[in-house]
């Protein structure tokens, strides 16, 4: 599948934004106004930039509002609706936090629930696409949810330490979230590497009973939309290298910086380490998402010479 940058930015940034918002809405941090502006502001910025970026690949962005109408059947529509609904308890939480300096636990609970549902809907946009076996499995929502928590957790650590709220438990919580995401992603990779598609060139043409089906003449001489959008393939060896890079950026480096923050009690160093960890986890997640598309194979490739999808 073609890795469209707008979608990669959207899932990475909005995932981190909802992860951070989820952690903020649990109410572990004091309802300090400045901290509220910085932390809620960072999460809102990531969510809004992500959502806007998702409209960039549309043929008609000006009609994007129409995507809110089909929530009964479409996960993309559900995601759009939930993203907008989430702004309501978030605004309520922000109002009490920023204006009254109090933490509203009802608004917090509602916000936390909405964040989980929204990220789940984002995941199911891909998870429901039956034609792509790399997406259409139970790991997809787990991966998206755990990545939102991990990237949000590192953002949480960064913004709290930046604003001078350096609690000793925070780096360890971030590490736990990172390890969970790492384990789930590793299981996901194992699953897709060992899996087989239920369709092959034989079932795609219905001619498998006659023997091996080969394409001898494609229907067009140049690449078309189908091949550009769904025939994107990445060489295996590049994929493995990129997986390695993404593991370092996503997990290894952020875990090391979090350990450093936990052990060293020098404030400036802690803030710098948290910033490095945050930048690294975002860059790593962008790589992971790029791979999530680039490695995914669509059944339409079966009509263009692929034996299995």
């Amino acid at each position, binding site marked *: *599948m073609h890795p469209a940058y707008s979608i990669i930015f959207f899932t990475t940034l909005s995932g981190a934004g909802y992860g951070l918002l989820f952690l903020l809405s649990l109410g572990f941090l004091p309802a300090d106004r400045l901290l509220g502006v910085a932390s809620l502001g960072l999460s809102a910025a990531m969510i809004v930039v992500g959502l806007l970026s998702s409209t960039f*690949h*549309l*043929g*008609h*962005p000006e*009609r*994007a509002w*129409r*995507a*809110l*109408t*089909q929530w*009964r*059947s*479409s*996960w*993309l*529509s559900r995601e*759009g609706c939930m993203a907008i609904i989430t702004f309501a308890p978030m605004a309520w939480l922000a109002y009490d936090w920023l204006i009254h300096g109090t933490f509203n636990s009802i608004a917090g609970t509602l916000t936390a629930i909405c964040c989980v549902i929204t990220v789940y809907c984002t995941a199911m*946009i891909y998870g*429901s*696409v*039956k*034609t*792509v076996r790399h997406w259409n499995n139970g790991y997809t929502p787990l991966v998206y949810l755990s990545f939102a928590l991990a990237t949000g957790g590192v953002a949480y650590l960064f913004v709290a330490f930046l604003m001078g709220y350096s609690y000793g438990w925070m780096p360890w919580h971030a590490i736990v979230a990172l390890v969970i995401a790492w384990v789930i992603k590793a299981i996901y990779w194992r699953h897709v590497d060992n899996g087989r598609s*239920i*369709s092959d060139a034989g*079932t*795609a*043409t*219905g*001619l498998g009973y*006659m*023997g*091996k*089906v*080969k*394409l*001898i*003449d*494609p*229907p*067009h*001489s*140049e*690449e*078309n*939309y*189908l091949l550009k*959008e*769904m025939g994107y393939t990445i060489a295996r060896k590049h994929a493995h290298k990129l997986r390695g890079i993404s593991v370092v950026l996503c997990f290894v480096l952020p875990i090391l910086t979090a350990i450093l923050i936990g052990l060293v009690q020098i404030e400036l160093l802690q803030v710098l380490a948290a910033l490095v960890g945050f930048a690294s986890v975002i860059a790593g997640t962008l790589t992971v998402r790029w791979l999530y598309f680039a490695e995914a194979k*669509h*059944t*339409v490739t079966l*009509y*263009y010479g692929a034996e299995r999808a």
Partner: protein
Amino acid sequence: MTSLPLTPSAKRLGLVIDLDICVGCQACVVNCKEWNTGGYAAPLSDVNPYGAETDGAWLNRVHALEVGEGKNSRTIHFPKSCLHCDDAPCVTACPTGASYKRQDDGIVLVDESKCIGCGLCAWSCPYGAREMDLAGGVMKKCTLCVDRIYNENIPEAQRQPACVNTCPASARHFGDFNDPDSNVSEMVRERGGYDLMPEMGTRPTNKYLPPRAKQQDKPSCVGSETAASTQVAAQGGFLGWLDDILSMGA
């Protein structure tokens, strides 16, 4: 509404494609493009049509396949357009309601005035039956020539999809699959018409007819020549006499 119709459609219009007959001439591909670029909606645009990297939206494509190995292999021309699935995943995935399946005849269409060009429907279709119109920013797909089959402004005999009308070999047939006596239902029954990728659960309306079995006992070219000359010799008469004379020198 992008939910599928709750009750099955009264008619199930679609195509039968005969893989035994298709010769891969691409006439249906061209006539589909020709009709639909001047059809009821916006043109079916091309990008850089005369340049080096030509691209464009087409609703019907013919792939040439080789199936089997060695002397048992066969060349099969494989036309592919939207199958107007009963459980169309492209319809339920559409966030805007632009993609829909008609209650009356089961045709799957795109309302281009609602489409945002997100491409999710094309991802959901296992068959690659949808192509983005890059100039229009909207999704295009086979309409089953809905602007021909009910069109009272054209002669009745031509109220068929353009691809069916134009096929010089009669490899494409149009009809109602809900009517057990229709031409298409009969063909499917007699020839064992089948679904593409049934495991995807889309329940396509269009059916493919398999190539007929090869005639394995047909004598080879060399064999048949010998048989012919023996026959001539046995015939006697002038040809037999001539054959005898000529054979003597050999």
